[in-house]
């Protein structure tokens, strides 16, 4: 087990936890050092993983998952394993998570009570990494919960505004989702094999393909809604604006950047991957919901005046697009969905980082109370414009490629209904432009609104490092999309889509 590189995605955060636990409360330097070294190690690890993964793929390893290890049994009576393995999607997600953890560390350079903060933050990321590497449903669910719980404390303690309310709401709604999810997962477990060898292992379940169609129609909504709550699917999205608005910067980054991806990833990995028949049959219900998310979130963002609310609604819109594309059940749209997850993760993290930095200076997030910040803090202003451009889908930045892949993929769907909905979803690009430019125009451009803001300073080095890293990542996806598409595409090996072949035909 220990020779498998994947396990270190969990081991390193645990070591970081121990390291920070040993640090003195007041020794901020040591705490930061542990956090930076650890997240750097994770970043390096994920890069190595990426290279190694591509190397193995190039060498002809065409199994659905690589680095699979299924030897550790946790609880024999229920056949729960610590099963790990990755495919292209997980690799991409791990890469994303480590980048955001790395930048999030820098974004929370000056946080109060750093020891406790980093302890919870890293516990959260342990859950996230664990979730992405596990292929055992139960283990996956456990890591999922590990990722959710620290959020309550992180928002409740370090948040701002109505933090208690938001933290409670967020946790309860996500827990409500988890309840559905748990039900769905247990249902899957009990139908995981026709011959009685029940298993939690995703690969085995997919290979068995034993879940009866009637049960799929019951379990698919369970799991899809369960994960969909975290993916901010309409009408279960309302935790997101409040939660993000109250959360501290790094938590917003990690939450919107990575945690919401758990939802999309879970929908793909569990709901669609294991129950494709139900997905095909019920897709229209969820298409309507996600289609509404896409447009609705964008419209709501148009009239909000709190920066974080705007961004949270835009996340609703963008994450809605992820789920939307997943439901299209064809390779291109799903590739687009994964790209959108990467892209949205990076750019929304960038947004939240910048909002946090601006808030840290002006102490307000109301766009009506700010103006002309471009002149005062050009660096942050330029970064914000770049983030905005990425969000509204400017070619050369990540938003464009992912959205286009989604639209083209979705429009390939043979069914008229799906194509019409694709057009509806397309409309979001205009609305996105409206609210992004509205914010940029009010916040950054125009005359300086508040004389006091004139004395504010531009970004510090750690803030620059954090934002520039994210921008480079966003631009890398935007400029060289085919690299990522290849990485993801190889995941959709014929076995996965053998089932889907009957449901969707790409021209």
């Amino acid at each position, binding site marked *: 087990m220990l020779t498998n590189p994947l396990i270190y995605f969990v081991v390193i955060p645990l070591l970081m936890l121990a390291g920070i636990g040993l640090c003195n409360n007041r020794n901020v330097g040591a705490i930061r050092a542990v956090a930076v070294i650890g997240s750097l190690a994770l970043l390096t690890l994920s890069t190595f993983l990426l290279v190694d993964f591509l190397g193995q793929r190039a060498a002809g390893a065409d199994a659905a998952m690589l680095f699979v290890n299924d030897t550790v049994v946790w609880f024999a009576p229920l056949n729960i394993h610590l099963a790990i393995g990755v495919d292209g999607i997980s690799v991409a997600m791990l890469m994303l998570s480590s980048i955001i953890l790395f930048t999030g560390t820098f974004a929370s350079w000056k946080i109060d009570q750093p020891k406790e903060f980093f302890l919870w933050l890293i516990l959260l990321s342990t859950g996230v990494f664990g979730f992405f590497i596990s292929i055992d449903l139960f283990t996956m669910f456990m890591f999922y919960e590990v990722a959710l719980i620290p959020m309550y404390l992180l928002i409740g303690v370090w948040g701002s505004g109505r933090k208690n309310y938001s933290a409670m709401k967020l946790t*309860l709604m996500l827990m409500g989702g988890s309840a559905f999810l748990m039900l769905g997962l247990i249902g899957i477990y009990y139908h995981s094999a026709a011959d009685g060898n029940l298993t939690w292992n995703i690969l085995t379940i997919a290979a068995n393909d034993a879940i009866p169609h009637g049960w799929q129609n019951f379990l698919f909504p369970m799991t899809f809604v369960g994960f969909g709550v975290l993916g901010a699917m309409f009408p279960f999205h309302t935790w997101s604006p409040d939660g993000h608005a109250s959360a501290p910067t790094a938590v917003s980054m990690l939450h919107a950047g990575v945690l919401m991806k758990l939802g999309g990833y879970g929908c793909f990995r569990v709901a669609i991957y294991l129950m494709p028949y139900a997905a095909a049959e019920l897709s229209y219900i969820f298409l309507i919901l996600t289609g509404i998310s896409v447009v609705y979130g964008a419209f709501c963002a148009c*009239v909000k005046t709190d920066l974080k609310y705007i961004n949270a609604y835009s996340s609703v819109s963008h994450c809605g697009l992820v789920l939307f594309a997943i439901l299209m059940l064809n390779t291109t749209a799903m590739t687009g969905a994964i790209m959108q997850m990467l892209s949205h993760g990076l750019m929304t993290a960038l947004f939240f980082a910048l909002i946090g930095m601006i808030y840290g200076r002006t102490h307000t997030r109301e766009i009506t109370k700010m103006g002309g910040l471009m002149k005062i803090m050009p660096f942050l202003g330029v970064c914000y414009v770049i983030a905005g451009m990425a969000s509204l889908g400017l070619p050369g930045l990540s938003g464009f490629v992912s959205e286009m892949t989604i639209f*083209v993929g979705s429009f390939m769907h043979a069914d008229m209904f799906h194509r019409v909905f694709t057009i509806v979803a397309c409309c979001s690009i205009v609305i996105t432009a409206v609210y992004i*430019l509205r914010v940029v125009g009010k916040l950054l*451009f125009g005359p300086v609104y508040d004389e006091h803001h004139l004395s504010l300073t531009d970004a510090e080095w750690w803030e620059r490092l954090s934002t520039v890293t994210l921008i480079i990542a966003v631009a890398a996806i935007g400029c060289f999309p085919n690299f990522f598409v290849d990485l993801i595409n190889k995941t959709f090996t014929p076995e996965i889509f053998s089932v889907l072949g009957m449901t969707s035909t790409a021209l």
Partner: protein
Amino acid sequence: MDVTIPILILAIPLTMFLLLGIAGCKMSHRTAGILGCLGMGTVLVLAYYTAAQYFFSGNELFGADGVRLQHIVFNQTWLEFTPTMAIKLGFLLDPISAMMLVVITTISFMVHLYSMGYMRDHHGVYEHGFQRFYAFLSLFSFSMLGLVVATNIFQMYIFWELVGASSYLLIGFYYVKPSAVSASKKAFIVTRFADLGFLIGILILSYYVGNFDFMNLTSSPVASLAETFSVDIAAPQHIAQIFADNAAPVFMGGSVLTWALVLIFMGGMGKSAMMPLHIWLPDAMEGPTPVSALIHAATMVVAGVYLVARLFPLYLMEDTALVIITVVGAITALYAAMVACTQLDIKRVLAFSTISQIAFMMVSLGVARPEHHEALGYMASMFHLFTHAMFKALLFLCAGAIIHAIGSNDYTDMHGLRKYMPITHWTFLIGCLAIAGIIPFSGFFSKDEILSACLGYDWVAYVWMSLVAGLTAFYMFRLYFLIFWWKEHKIHEGHHAPHDQAWTMSLPLIILAAISCVAGFIPFGELVSWNGHPYDFMAHFDWSVAGISLAIAVAGIALAWVMYRRENALPEKFRNAVPALWTWCYHRFYWDELYMFITHKIIFGGICRPLAWFDRNIIDGTMDSFAAVTNKASEAIRPLQSGQIQMYVWYYLIGVLALAGICAACIL
């Protein structure tokens, strides 16, 4: 063909953008300006070389048997959707892209040079953000070049978006000015809305066709030559057949192909400011004047025309689409010309004139049919695009020079400038003559061809467009007389007299004026035609059409001469004679107000706000009420835990008795 030069043509502006954008703040203004000009100058030389190679080298890749072919210099897969469907970034050389290379690099270089003088005040101090300005100009040039050499419709869309963004950045260059900010926002959002149509059109087209390549949509490969294609009617006929076989014959009142083409044209309407999506262009004049010259007169706004021209063979398949283009173009042309007659701001007059002239090109494309003079309209449109780019850029740069000298956009502050700014005066006059269509200036030839094409299609179109041409001559000379004649220039106390500008500004004016004088004699039909077959204008030249159009132009000029040469009461009388018409024209037919109403009252007030309210109160309220219900329920059962032991005994007893009762019931 060697790929180095094409790659350099695209790479140099991009590099300049990154260099000036990232490191610009570290270098001096002067260095940045010179770097920008040098970069663009290099691209100019390379583009001229490429175009010359294409048109005159006689290489069989570019033309065989006198037929000009499309040649793909390189085509790199950028984003693969499916094995057959991929966005590629490539470099397509054909008559129109080669012509556009010349146009873009010429104007762009002129603007780069001109801005060296324009973007500084009278004391020679450079404006704040000078490096940024050059960076954005380079970005724009890059995107525009990428747009015209696109090998597939998606590449075009990519650069289409990029030019939109760089236009946004340049219009909002003076970002402290609220009007500039809102103008840039408006420009971006209106064109974005149009791009939505473009995107949907692309999606529909690609859904049936299966890929995005122009070489598949409009041309077929030449058997003997690699990567070389000839435009012919067979390819679009094949596409039309695919649609006929697979798509529903009628979808909401039109065939699916018509819808796709009209939606794509909608993208063009947005960029080219056709009615009703024209409202952004007059506002876009908030940007620095060189930007207006480059983007909003010469290059970006003709992208819509270019798009239709690029897909022209496909449009030929659907007559309805072409008719729609014609009608939209004709209405826009007249509308913009009427509005231009009443505006005070000289840049706005030029903006509406641009709209009107682009509409000319659109109409010309709309009326082009191969059966009539080998689609004369297509050539005429491209020709007019070329000449218009030159003289409109010239007019804008002149206007910029005047604004720079006077410090105001309003012609009421100008008058009688001919004595003070002779170079500007003469070049402006040349520009006006060219746009009015006076022989031998370039506008005459192109406009005359457009009118011939209209006549060949339908006499209504011809009369209509001739009327617009007359109006064009009138409003341009109205502008000219009001700026340079009318009455003596009044110099305010403490101001020095306006004077001609530095050589960096004058040189571009002179060059462009020279081009405007001679460009009409370029044998354009030899170079550009819809299917590559050379076409001799002179053989088809119709003196009656030319004579009439000349007469109309002269009449327009004469009217302007009478009304505006020196101060008199005629304009006032005219205004009082048709007050309603004048007011409507002056207020641009209240389009802005209509849009304001739609966006603010309907979209924001009628959709966004209710939705946000719905979200906070209904959706969120439901979620909160779950919590509230749980809370209430627990409050309700809380008294059960009273701490009174005897109550617990009661519950216990009741429970036991109930259990006993149930058992008894079961046993019995």
